[in-house]
């Protein structure tokens, strides 16, 4: 019976060790991907900086800021939320953070009488909101750990068309901003319409000689602005996706590191229990030998010293068999 317990424990240790190998591998993969994801975030910075500059310059120099995507609507009836989550789990509180923030905003909207619609990005947010019966629009997923610009473009085009058609009056992006490998935060960012301060502040960039730049346009400024603003929105979505991907890897690395640590702890305590069980079994066996010997000595005191250890073991085996 003691041997049986020992075997069960050995099995459990083996399974925990196998799990530990998996979590350790996932931790290392996530750690290496953080670096790559961070580089991608960095690589997207020049483009988004430049496009912001161009939008500002155009607004300042061209002056035509009557694009519908720039106009804040007086009455906000429907708000569109775009929560960016992961496609897979096993990343600690990453998905929960984004989903909770989105849900809280929706509840606040509903109590203040506004309608909402969700455009979920990532399988986890889609299944979460679908299961709870929220109003969903088109879902986007399958790229959460390595988002491409094409994916961002699809999302951008979709929300712009939702806004342009009048189905929604505001689009809010919910994602996890990557600050550093050690810290990320869930943020809500209004995406459409663009905020005024995004387009203002362009000074037409006075040249080094102090002269204000007088732009030539090809074709006219409003046409450029019309094609430029969707690109700008796509760039914002892309930046959000990249931030979310980097955060996902950081969260996963942390979650898997603590899982690996837990597995180690578990293996240690299980081995201790197993060793004690084995020790117990040995002790019991010795006790049985001694007990057997004493029982024999009770029969005839003279023969006790003549019984060798081998015989005693046979006896103890017999007695164990009997007790089983």
């Amino acid at each position, binding site marked *: 019976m003691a041997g049986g317990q020992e075997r069960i424990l050995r099995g459990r240790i083996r399974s925990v060790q196998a799990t530990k190998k998996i979590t350790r591998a996932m931790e290392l993969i996530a750690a290496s991907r953080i670096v790559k994801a961070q580089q991608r975030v960095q690589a997207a910075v020049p483009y988004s900086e430049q496009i912001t500059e161009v939008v500002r310059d155009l607004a300042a120099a061209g002056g035509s800021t009557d694009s519908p995507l720039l106009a804040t609507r007086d009455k906000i009836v429907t708000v569109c939320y775009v929560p960016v989550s992961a496609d897979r789990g096993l990343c600690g509180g990453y998905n929960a953070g984004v989903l909770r923030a989105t849900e809280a905003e929706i509840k606040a909207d509903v109590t203040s009488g506004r309608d909402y619609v969700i455009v979920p990005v990532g399988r986890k947010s889609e299944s979460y909101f679908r299961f709870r019966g929220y109003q969903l629009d088109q879902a986007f997923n399958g790229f959460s750990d390595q988002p491409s610009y094409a994916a961002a473009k699809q999302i951008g085009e979709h929300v712009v068309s939702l806004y342009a058609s009048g189905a929604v009056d505001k689009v809010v992006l919910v994602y996890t901003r990557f600050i550093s490998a050690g810290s990320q935060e869930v943020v809500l960012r209004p995406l459409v319409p663009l905020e005024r301060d995004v387009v203002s502040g362009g000074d037409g960039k006075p040249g080094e000689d102090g002269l204000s730049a007088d*732009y030539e*346009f*090809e074709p006219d400024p409003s046409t*450029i602005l019309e094609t430029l603003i969707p*690109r700008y929105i796509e760039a914002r979505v892309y930046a959000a996706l990249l931030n979310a991907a980097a955060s996902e890897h950081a969260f996963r690395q942390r979650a898997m590191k603590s899982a690996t640590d837990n597995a180690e702890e578990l293996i240690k305590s299980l081995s201790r229990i197993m060793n004690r069980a084995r020790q117990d079994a040995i002790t019991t066996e010795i006790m049985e030998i001694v007990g057997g010997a004493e029982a024999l000595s009770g029969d005839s005191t003279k023969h006790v010293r003549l019984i060798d250890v081998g015989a005693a073991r046979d006896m103890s085996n017999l007695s164990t068999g009997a007790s089983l």
Partner: protein
Amino acid sequence: MADSAAMRVEVVSPERVLFSGEATQVITRTLGGGEVAFLAGHAPFLAAVIPNHTRVYLVDGSVLDIAVHGGFVEVSNGKVSILTDDAELGSEIDKAHAAAEVARLEEQLRHEHDAKGAAELGKAHARLAAAGGGSGTSAAAH
């Protein structure tokens, strides 16, 4: 005088910076404006760019070929920035593959003409031209 002065040129896409450095001349194609060449000291300029074969004349005399698949070009403070959704360096494009793509799309458009196919063909021409085959102007025909 034109080829002596250098200016700063940047070609950036959301995914990477394709080129950042000094150049003497940049040729690209704008929406409705045909091909435009920029030299140092160009007036501030902002335009939408259609898919084309953009050429950057480097300071050392060599030419960098880039297939730019639409975007914007801004000239300000003597700096030329090309912002594009997607772009490829000519050296990264497989010429044979690009030529096959052009042929396939041309064949397809002969049967049914649609805007999407025409846009694709414009891109394919830009790629082929940047890879060093065909002419950079053929994209304008469509």
